[in-house]
């Protein structure tokens, strides 16, 4: 049993997380991407602001179908009285992850 746990921990240590955040046009996962961000825990690639003109996927669903795991989506909030027309942060944020094997 200890060997199994040790192996699982070792496997975990040999993986790194990649995070993909897609901002969609509405609350449906199959709506189109209007903005995006990526962070790569493997260190293989340095993503940064302004580094791409086209998103990695056209919709959130396309990311799912390519193996990304959805871990969070923005909740729908009622509009605060008096601030119904205020615009601020991008509204439909979907966070995805992948775990990538690395050589250690």
């Amino acid at each position, binding site marked *: 049993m200890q060997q199994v746990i040790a192996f699982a921990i070792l496997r975990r240590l040999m993986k790194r997380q990649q995070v993909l955040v897609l901002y969609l046009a*509405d609350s449906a996962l199959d709506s189109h*991407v209007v903005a995006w961000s990526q962070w790569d825990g493997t260190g293989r690639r340095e993503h940064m602001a302004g580094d791409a003109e086209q998103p990695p996927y056209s919709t959130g669903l396309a990311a799912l179908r390519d193996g990304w795991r959805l871990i969070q989506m923005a909740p729908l909030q009622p509009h605060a009285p008096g601030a119904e027309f205020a*615009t601020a942060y991008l509204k439909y944020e979907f966070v995805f992850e992948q775990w990538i094997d690395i050589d250690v």
Partner: protein
Amino acid sequence: MSERTLLSSRQMATFVARGFLRLDAVVPDDINEQFLDEVGRPPQPGESVRALYAKLLSGSGIPTVAAGTPLADAYPPTSAVSRVLHLPVVRGAIESLVGPAPRFDHHFLHVTFPPEFYAARGLPNVSQHTHQDSTIDPRRAFDVQIMYYPHAVTPEMGGTRLVPGTHLRIVSEAAIGRYQNIRGQQHIVCPAGTLVFLHHGIWHGGGVNRSAALRYMFKIRINPTVRQQRLWDTSDLPNDHFEQRPIFLLKDAPDPNSVHTILTTPEPWFEADTGRLEYLNRIRLWRYLLGDERFDADYWLTRIENEPTASTAG
């Protein structure tokens, strides 16, 4: 008062809708050269970028100016910046946007260093996070930031990144730093002498410089001292400016030069529902600039302001 060329209604409506106005190569080369001479010699790699920056700023001929100074008194009359501000096209844009006697808020020389400066210190060379300047600012009145590019900016130099149409979003400065890429973002790659006039709220960030040369951008923020109402050349406002036109079911493409069209043209990043709120907020800003609450574009405000009080009861 020296000669000035006021903005047209189309230019003003574009500023209201998109939050910026770009004027390519409007500053003559001799002023650009004078500005670069006044800034001083570029530093060499080796010291930290922060130390080089401090050295560059302290050695430059650009004056320090107290916030709140009348813009007209901020720069020596023969300085390059003063000469830029006195160009008729610049005077006209400033007067159209913030009035004839704006206040100086602050200025800064933005320098983006080439990769070798970072490599010399073992640091990553990355772009600046997306942000909105200053802090949460819910005013209808707006400040203007003038970005001056004294030399040509090539694609390798990165350029300032800005996202058209984001200026009416009320956010808190670097809270938007997680947004790396937004559809429709623009990189200011431009000829020498280009000026960009920005609404204070526009989302932007410095692009990473992968060239061998330093990239300079000088920014001045100015505040209005008068109500921003009909300060531009309104002689081109059409007679039917207050009339509504058919919406949704159309048989011809709308006139792209119409103020109504400009105010209701979406940006590529607009969300389905909040894109409509952007229209409302643009129309409200146009009303503010007109000083007339009767204006509407494509019925967006009229519909939600309709609360009849007439009664059929006798």
